[in-house]
């Protein structure tokens, strides 16, 4: 999916470059918070990990295999800021060292493959972990869904960029068909491997999984065969609790903003899809008439109809994904807002037990 030079025209590439630079700047600021002063070595090693994991081929069916994109995996394991940063660095190095992806298309590549995948995956992951019960299994399930949606979302984003600044007028419906169709398949593999990987890491070092930080349970003492809450020194108990509360609130505010952006973005394309399809249908209709005039009975007429159907199915698929993402994130937002307003008790109980 690395876009080469000349695929997207110069102005759109420049705009995408600015967007990518902004995202990297935000990532640099955020990564300092996520990794404190260990940013450079840790982010570098995580980038090396993503670089290596992209070489891990998994067999899809007889004879074919795919490889991980790693956006969702990075966002869930090390957090969205570090994730964006690591993928941007991987893409930069691939572009300069291995000529994989054009230099002028670097902005497009970072925006589509780095920013869209990580932001979509992380927003969805956060929303789902809010809704689902707080267990390890639900973290894995959320990772699965996040990775599943993030790959076609990147394909939709690519189609959008191509629609604005593509150098050739391939009908958008067809680009969408090809991109989303292929990437739904890739997404299933990506989702399974991402979820299993997150599960494997949680089983060994749950503290390393950024997306599962809320799962840590308070320590308990076994006194005379019964489990007793660990009696904590009042000073120690009072100081970490507000920090935790404030940081989750901050994460939640960021998640809400991301969800709103996501909902607007995705629903825009979900609603814009029929227009594109109508356009394709109209194009193909005109095409058919031309064919009837010129070479009646050519396979192209049949091909056109078949393709519109394909486009419609895949468009519908993209729509379903978009709506699903919006609903999931939206309900996550709703749930969280409602939960904060009504019961203060669970929060109080946890602070007491700590």
């Amino acid at each position, binding site marked *: 999916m690395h876009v080469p*030079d000349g695929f997207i025209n110069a102005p759109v590439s420049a705009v995408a470059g600015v967007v990518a630079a902004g995202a990297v700047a935000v990532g*640099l600021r955020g990564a300092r918070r996520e990794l404190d002063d260990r940013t450079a070595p840790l982010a570098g090693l995580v980038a*090396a990990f993503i670089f*290596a994991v992209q070489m891990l081929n998994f067999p899809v069916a007889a004879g074919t295999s795919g490889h991980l994109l790693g956006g969702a995996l990075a966002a869930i394991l090390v957090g969205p800021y570090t994730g964006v940063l690591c993928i941007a660095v991987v893409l930069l*190095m691939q572009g300069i060292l291995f000529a994989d992806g*054009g230099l002028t298309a670097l902005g497009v590549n970072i925006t589509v493959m780095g920013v869209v995948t990580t932001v979509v995956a992380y927003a969805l992951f956060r929303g789902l972990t809010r809704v689902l019960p707080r267990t390890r299994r639900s973290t894995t399930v959320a990772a699965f869904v996040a990775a599943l949606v993030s790959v076609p979302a990147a394909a939709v984003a690519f189609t959008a960029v191509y629609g604005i600044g593509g150098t050739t*007028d391939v009908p958008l419906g067809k680009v969408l068909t090809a991109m989303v169709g292929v990437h739904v398949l890739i997404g299933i593999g990506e989702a399974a491997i991402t979820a299993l990987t*997150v599960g*494997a890491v949680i089983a060994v070092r749950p503290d390393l999984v950024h997306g599962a930080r809320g799962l840590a349970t308070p320590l308990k003492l076994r006194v005379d065969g019964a489990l007793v809450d660990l009696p904590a020194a009042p000073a120690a108990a009072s100081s970490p609790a507000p920090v935790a509360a404030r940081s989750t609130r901050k994460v939640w505010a960021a998640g809400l903003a991301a969800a709103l952006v996501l909902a607007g973005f995705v629903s825009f394309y979900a609603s814009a899809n029929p227009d594109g399809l109508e356009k394709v249908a109209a194009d193909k209709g005109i095409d058919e008439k031309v064919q009837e005039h010129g070479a009646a009975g050519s396979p192209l007429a049949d091909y056109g109809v078949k393709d519109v159907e394909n486009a419609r199915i895949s468009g519908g698929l993209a729509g379903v994904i978009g709506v699903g993402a919006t609903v999931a994130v939206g309900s996550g937002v709703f749930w969280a807002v409602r939960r904060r307003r009504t019961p203060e008790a669970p929060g109080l109980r946890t602070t007491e037990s700590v």
Partner: protein
Amino acid sequence: MGAGHAHKLYRHGHSPVHDLPPHCKLAAVLGFVVVVVSTPREAVWAFALYGVLLAGVAAVARIPAGFLLKRLVIEVPFVAFALLMPFVVPGEQTELLGVSVSVPGLWGAWNVLAKGTLGVAASVLLASTTELRSLLLGLQRLRLPPLLVQIASFMIRYGDVITDELRRMSVARRSRGFEAGGVRHWGVLAKTAGALFIRSYERGERVHLAMVSRGYTGTMPVIDEVTASRTQWAHAAALPVLALAVCLLGWTV
């Protein structure tokens, strides 16, 4: 790590192109690619001239044509996409070798193929004449944020280590009779990735501690300051300036 720190694309040599400061080369390649991308696709001869320019650079750098052509294989997936274009783009139809193809589709395919190939060739030339470390220094000289350059350098330095770890795990799996044959084996691969992540992360923590214990305060000291003289800049600028002239001709003619 035994194979030295040069990356696979690098080709050791002492040509005038090898000796140019890295940031000059980076700027020149970027300028060249931008010019190529903004050339109108109807000016077919302009792209031929760009090809000649790159061939000239390769000759000065003493990079054999076979080496360069082998590296262009990276482009293949998008070539496949480009070859599809004449069949899916609607518009005026024409006959080519007995097959009905569309004219705008042909132009689109040509556009992607020509510009993409020239871009890849320019990048390959840069990578095969510039050492890794100096490339990173060049990026830093071009005002890329220092933290980003540090992350990139860690990624490059430990990329081989991590990839080797992955390879060793793969050898271990295969020597125990494992063969990834379908969906059933995704779990095994995922556990590999999980183990790899934990190892990478913990190595990152160890590297950080090692750096702190050697006096790291958040910034890397710059040991060798690369500077470019006016003539070096002029030599590097030859490629994009000539390309710009070709591009302007392409727009006017």
